[in-house]
Each structure stands twice: as C-alpha cells, then as structure tokens.
C-alpha cells in the first residue's frame, strides 16, 4: 500500500475534501470533483495537455471512492470502453484533449445513434491557442457532427457544477454529452464550494437489443429520426432551461453581448473597465450546442446591436445569425466576420474591451493597453531580452539517443530523413539538436517513414517514436511497414512513461492508472511478433554502443531492404529523480577539468544540455551541479576528455 501511494509522486489530491468546504482548485480538479459528485465511477482517457490531470486526480483517489479509472492505449479504445460501460448501465466519462476527439469520431457518431443507458460524458480539454498541440481545431464542429450536446463552464465553480448537470442531460436524452474546457480554464485556479459525493458501487448489466446495438445500415436508417428528434428538439428544449445559461439585462442597453464559456468573464471585466455596466446586457451561454433558440431570439429582439464572443471559429456567431434570420430580428451582429474579434488565439479582457469600445464609441482607458499591444517601445529595454529555446531535461535519455542517431548517419557519410512523433522527444526539433524533420500527429512517424521510403528517396529514413505513441498508433503502421516491405529504421525511445503530459503510466510501465501491477509490454517483443527480423535494444547513456547499433541497423536496412527496430531504453529522468528522492539517493554530478577543457563548446553545441554552462571570462565550460544528474553523456562526447564524475569530498 505504501508503494502505491509513493508511486503517485508529487500528486496529492485536493479534490477529496468534504462537502461544504471552500477550496482553491484548478479547473481540472474542479471537473474531476464534478465527476465524483455526479456519481460517475467509471473513467477512461488518454493523456493530453490540458486534460491529463482530470484522470490523474481521479486515479489517485480511485480506491477511496470505489472508482474504476483507466489510461487506455489510445482515445478510440478509451471511448469504446466507456461507451460499453454506459450501455451496461454504469455512468461513465471519457477524458481527452481536443485532438483525441479526432480519434473517437468513428465510435462517437454511432454512440449517438444507439444512445446510451447511463450518463456518458466526453470531457475535452481544448488547447485553442496551442501551447502543446499541432492544431487549434474547434471541437464544437465535431460535437455537431456527432450530434452530441455540448456545455462549457465560464467559472471554476461552474467547471464542477456543470459536470453533474451534463450527466443529468445525458441521462435524460440518452445521448453522450460533451463537457468542453479550454486550456485557460483547465490551468486556472479559483474558489470552489464542494458538494456531496454519492457513495455506493457499480455493477454492470447489459440487456441485448440487436435492433439498437448492431449498427448495420438498415438499422441506422430506422434509428436516425429518433436521434434527430433528440438533438434538434428535445435537447434544444432542455437548453432553454439550462440553469447555467444566464441573461443579465441592463435598462439602457446599447449593446447585447452573447458570450460562451470563459469569454463571459472577459466581457464582464471589459464592461466594468469601460464603465459601461448600465449600457450592456449579457447572455451567458454555458450550453451552446444545440443552441437555445428561443433564449437567443428573445435576446436578439431586445437589442439593436449584439456582439458574439467566442474563441476559435465563429461557430456560435453563425448559429446566432441563422436564428436572427429565422425570426426576422432587426439587429446588427458583431463578432469575427465584422473584424471586432480575431479568428485565432485566445481572448483576453483587453481584446474584448477594444471590441466593445469600437462598437459603442466609448474609448475610456482603452489607450492603456496600447502600451503593450503593438505600441512603440518606450526605450530599448526589449533589446536586452533574448529568447529561451526549449530543451530536453538535463540527463534526458532522448538527447543521447538523438546524438547517437546523428553521429551514426554522419559516420556513414549518409543523409537521413528523420520522421518524428508526438511526445517529449519532439523537443528534439529545437537547436542545437535539430534532430527531426517532421512531426504531425500520433503515430505518423512510422507511416511517413514508410511513405518516404516507398517514394524512392535516396536518404536513409528513420522514424522516431516514444513508447506510449508506439502503442497508441505506431503498431498498425509497423504492421503496414512490414507487410508492404519497407526499408526504414524505427527508433523506439522507450522511457517507460508518458512523460510529456505529466508522467502517466502506459503499457511500457508495468503499472496501470490506479497504480496496480500490470503486464509490462516490450516494443521489441511486439516488433518481433509483427515480423521485424532485425530488433535490437540499447542504453542511450552508452553513447558508443548506441552509435554502433544505429550504424549496424542502417547497414541492415540498406543491404536487406527490410525494416529494423532499435529500442533506446532508459527511464524518464524526471521519474528516476523522483525515485532517487524517495530513496534518499543523490546522483553524482560531473565536473569539467579546466586544465583539459579547450573551450571548444562541442558538448554544448552537440547536446544542448541545460546543465552545461560557458564561462565567458575563462572561456571554459562548467557544469551546474544543481542541474546535473550524472548521466555522463557529455563526458563521452568531449573531444578533450575533460569531463569526469565529481569525486567524493
């Protein structure tokens, strides 16, 4: 039991407090608490910023509250697991980031067709102004395709409360319901008053109904009218009464603002900032899909000018315009098409204040934000500031792996195309490593490498993929590469954790989400079973052995014309450091012998390890002892043999 608690590392749950308490929660914690309070006990997901913490939180208290929590191998699988559980009458939630919804599209649409027997929530964290994603898609369009009602909180308290309301809607409509939270919502904290957590446990019971659950075409045709009635009529009726949709009228309203989610908070602040509280009315929509048509048409008919506030695409704006057309409202509608709100990026109070100032002609205080929004620099302060290139952690095994790949390719006098994938190792694109040429989405490295190879490029083609991504989407691509005969090297960077999103366990870890022992999968075994004849494993900290293995693997794929798999295995250094702290172990840092260091900076330029520093006065490299974790890779690459472990004092 002690081991189980410790394995959660720094994760101490805030959400297991008692009813009535007022606590400071992140919105991810608030959503997790909302899931608890809604009585949902079955949770699946795949990690992705900004939603990962929701599942992490619930996993850490699974035992205490009798939950089943699963990190699934990918989103599609995770959704299908939760869907089946809800068919068996168990309230369930599936959690992912916005990109994960692309993976569940297929089962999701059908889940709406069949309907569900207990609440099924899809909780999505949307990185709308991407901080950690390859696109900024507007997930509302996807929910529309799947005909799932969608709700979105605008305060942290609402983030908790909305989950329970969404679960009730899912129960009433027998449809999956989406709870959408943008990154800014997920990663902010505020005061939340807690409610009751229902006790009890769950037990599934599935009553077969082939008309409903075997979705062959003839049955889909019979079932569609029911789905359309639910989405276009029943859901709209519930939306009209949704308690978190609010209308705030002012008597002399010159402008009405329709705001979705967090936009409401920005609008509220902007109106206060401009001193327009008595001149602006609000329609705050926490439920916007399908839109509450009567609520909106009444608001439109009460105002001559309406501003629609939303992040990403003009989704609601189009809905509002279509409602305005249907009811013949005589109103000017402002938003993205009018140029008042940008199409890209997240909103803030300043952007909204400028928009409202432009529409109302009230510019009070607005010149203030000119200072840092494109205003001329007031002096040459900004010239002093330089960028911070993101790097891999000190001692990160990926750095060593990339170094070996680059060295091996160079030593053979060849050129390589390196296709990257999603995970920490995509940081390898930054200088000085600049080690990958492509990175688009989960699992694409292997399929793209195969595509390049088949396109008859002259270069060696190397796919780089992490452990979690390998299990997520790399496997089918590897089968494809073997099946179709591909001349590629697949380098699996196996650090045993899904590190990028906060160190979640995956099939390579040996434990599951609830930290129970689980089968540990080795990419080598899978590769062999798939039919890859050349499979090797190396420790990336052993630079010479790694370079040799890459050289041999490249020679193999060139001479045999078949794929090779090389697994670079070394646990994530962050996870290792946690283990060291727990055991009271301190790593031995390395030190530079200045008598030998020539100041050539090869270590810094070839590795970019943040523990390496350059002393300008002495023109020598030094190692920051607080950062060095003693991986010893720099010592192996130093041409002057000037780096060695620090001897005990």
């Amino acid at each position, binding site marked *: 039991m002690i081991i189980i608690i410790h394995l959660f590392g720094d994760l101490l749950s805030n959400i297991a407090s008692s009813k009535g308490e007022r606590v400071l929660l992140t919105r991810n914690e608030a959503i997790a608490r909302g899931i608890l309070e809604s009585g949902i006990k079955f949770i699946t997901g795949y990690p992705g910023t900004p939603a990962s913490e929701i599942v992490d939180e619930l996993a850490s208290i699974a035992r205490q509250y009798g939950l089943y929590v699963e990190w699934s191998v990918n989103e599609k699988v995770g959704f299908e697991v939760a869907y089946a559980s809800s068919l068996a009458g168990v309230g369930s939630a599936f959690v992912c980031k916005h990109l994960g919804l692309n993976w569940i599209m297929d089962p999701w649409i059908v889940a709406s067709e069949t309907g569900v027997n207990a609440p099924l929530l899809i909780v999505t964290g949307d990185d709308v102004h991407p901080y950690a994603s390859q696109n900024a898609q507007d997930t509302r369009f996807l929910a529309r395709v799947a005909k799932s009602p969608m709700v979105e909180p605008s305060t942290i308290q609402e983030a908790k409360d909305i989950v329970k309301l969404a679960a009730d809607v899912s129960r009433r409509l027998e449809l999956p319901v989406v709870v959408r939270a943008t990154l800014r919502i997920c990663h902010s904290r505020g005061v939340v008053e807690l409610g009751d957590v229902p006790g009890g446990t769950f037990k599934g019971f599935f009553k077969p109904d082939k008309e409903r659950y075997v979705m062959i075409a003839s049955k889909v045709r019979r079932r569609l009218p029911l789905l359309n009635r639910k989405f276009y009529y029943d859901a709209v009726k519930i939306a009209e009464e949704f308690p978190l949709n609010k209308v705030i009228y002012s008597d002399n309203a010159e402008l009405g603002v329709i705001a979705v989610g967090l936009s409401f908070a920005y609008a509220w602040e902007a109106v206060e900032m401009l001193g327009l509280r008595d001149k602006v009315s609000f329609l705050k929509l926490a439920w916007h899909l399908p839109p509450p048509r009567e609520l909106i048409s009444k608001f439109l008919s009460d105002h001559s000018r309406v501003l629609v506030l939303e992040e990403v695409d003009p989704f609601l704006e189009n809905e509002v315009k279509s409602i305005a057309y249907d009811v013949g409202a005589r109103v000017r509608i402002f938003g993205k098409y009018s140029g008042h709100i940008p199409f890209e990026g997240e909103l803030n109070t300043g952007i909204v204040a400028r928009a409202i100032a432009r529409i109302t002609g009230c510019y009070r205080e607005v010149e203030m934000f000119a200072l840092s929004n494109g205003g001329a620099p007031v002096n040459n302060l900004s010239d002093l500031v330089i960028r911070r290139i993101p*790097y891999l952690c000190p001692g990160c095994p990926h750095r060593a792996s990339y170094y070996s790949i680059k060295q091996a390719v160079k030593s053979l006098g060849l050129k390589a195309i390196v296709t990257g994938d999603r995970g920490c190792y995509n940081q390898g694109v930054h200088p000085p490593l600049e080690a990958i040429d492509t990175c688009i989405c989960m699992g694409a490295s292997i399929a793209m490498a195969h595509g390049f190879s088949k396109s008859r490029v002259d270069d060696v083609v190397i796919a780089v993929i992490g452990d979690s991504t390998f299990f997520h989407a790399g496997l089918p691509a590897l089968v494809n590469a073997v099946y179709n005969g591909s001349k590629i090297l697949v380098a699996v960077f196996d650090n045993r954790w899904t590190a990028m999103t906060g160190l979640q366990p995956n099939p390579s870890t040996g434990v599951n989400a609830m930290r129970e022992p689980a089968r540990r999968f080795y990419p080598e075994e899978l590769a062999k079973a798939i039919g890859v004849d050349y499979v090797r494993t190396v420790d990336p900290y052993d630079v010479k052995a790694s370079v040799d293995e890459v050289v041999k693997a490249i020679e193999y794929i060139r001479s045999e014309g078949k794929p090779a798999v090389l697994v670079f295995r070394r646990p994530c250094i962050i996870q290792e450091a946690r283990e060291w702290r727990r055991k009271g172990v301190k790593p031995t840092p390395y030190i530079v012998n200045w008598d030998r260091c020539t100041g050539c900076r090869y270590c810094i330029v070839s590795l970019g390890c943040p523990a390496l520093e350059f002393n300008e006065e002495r023109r020598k490299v030094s190692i920051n002892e607080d950062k060095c974790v003693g991986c010893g890779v720099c010592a192996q690459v130093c041409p002057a043999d000037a780096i060695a472990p620090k001897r005990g004092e």
Partner: protein
Amino acid sequence: MGSYNVLIIGVGGQGVIFASSVLGRAALNSGLNVVIGETKGLARRGGTVEAHVKIGYSENLSPLIPPGYVDLLLSFEFMEGLRYLNRVRRGGIAVISTESIKPINSYIYRGEKYPKVDSSIDILSEYAGINNVKIILFDPKPIVSKLKLPQVANMAMLGFAYGVSGVNVGKVEFIKAIRDVARGRYVKENIEAFNEGLRCSENVKAKISKPGLVVFP
C-alpha cells in the same frame, strides 16, 4: 479594474506555482475572491512560467491579466522580469530578482547575449521614469544563504513584494497560507524566508515612494 493584479514570473523550478498558491490561499483566507491563471506548458523544458493572480470582490474574474493592467510584477528571474515589465500599469510596481538563469542559446549563438544586471540599470531607470513605474531589483541571495536553502528564494521575494505593494491581505493569513500550501515540506524555512523578505521591505519603503529604480540590498 476591479481586482488587484499580481503577475508572478519565473522559469521552471523557481516556485512560481507555489508562490501563486500561497498568495491565492492568503487572499482566500482573508475572505476575498481569487482567480489564478497559469501558463506552464514548457516549465520542465526551460520555458517561462506565468501565474496571473487576480484578487478582488467580483464574482466574475477572468484568469488573465490584460497587458498594461499588472499592479504588481514579481519576477524570480532577471531577464524574464525585463521581458514582462511592459505588462505593468502606470503607477504599478515591479519586483525583479537579480538571479540570472541563462538559456542554452546564450552559450551557442554569438548574437544572443544574456543581459548583465549592472549594464541594464540605466535602461531600467529610464524605463521607470518614462512609464511611471516603480522597479526594485532584489537580490535574494543574502536571505537564502542565511537560511541555507536556495528553494525558499520565492518566499523571500513574496514577503518583500507583499511589504512594498498594496496586496490587501493580512500577514497572519499569509503565514497560514504557507502552512496550507507547503503541506509539511520546509514550512519553517518558508515562513522564515517570507518574514525576512517582509522585514527587508521596511528598509526600502521610503525609497520607493516615487517612480524609479531601487536596487536592494
């Protein structure tokens, strides 16, 4: 705006999230509403960490401080303090650590030199004058070396910033907040660092009655 806006800045590992939690909890303990927005995506990878702490009575606080509306900037790193200085409103305060954490690019590219504290002083002074901002360059080393714990520099700076700014929160609430947030880890040291920072602020209060630059100690 209807809130007191504190922007806390640092790079990964400097305790930005911890400091913002303490400040937020202290405000909560004082019966105020508080919202904290964080940008921490690349914290582990050398990126900047931002915590927007908004304290007030309004129910509808958004989690972002618009540029030009920062009442108090607290930067645990020198260059990041310069980077975010233009977020501070006229009449606002910036407390910037002199601790320098150089990015790896400063060792690799000739054109990317990390700014030296000494040679930045004139420009900062000029900036403070033009923009009516009070800037305090704060070296936490004396306090930290006294307590022999580099990790508590953030609490020393929070205590100092609390002393020189208008955060409407009681000291007792701050101490309680540190206990709540630290959860048994270095509670005594964190409280000592906070108190020491607060004590130091007494010495400079007279100097910062007007806009300009103060270097402490």
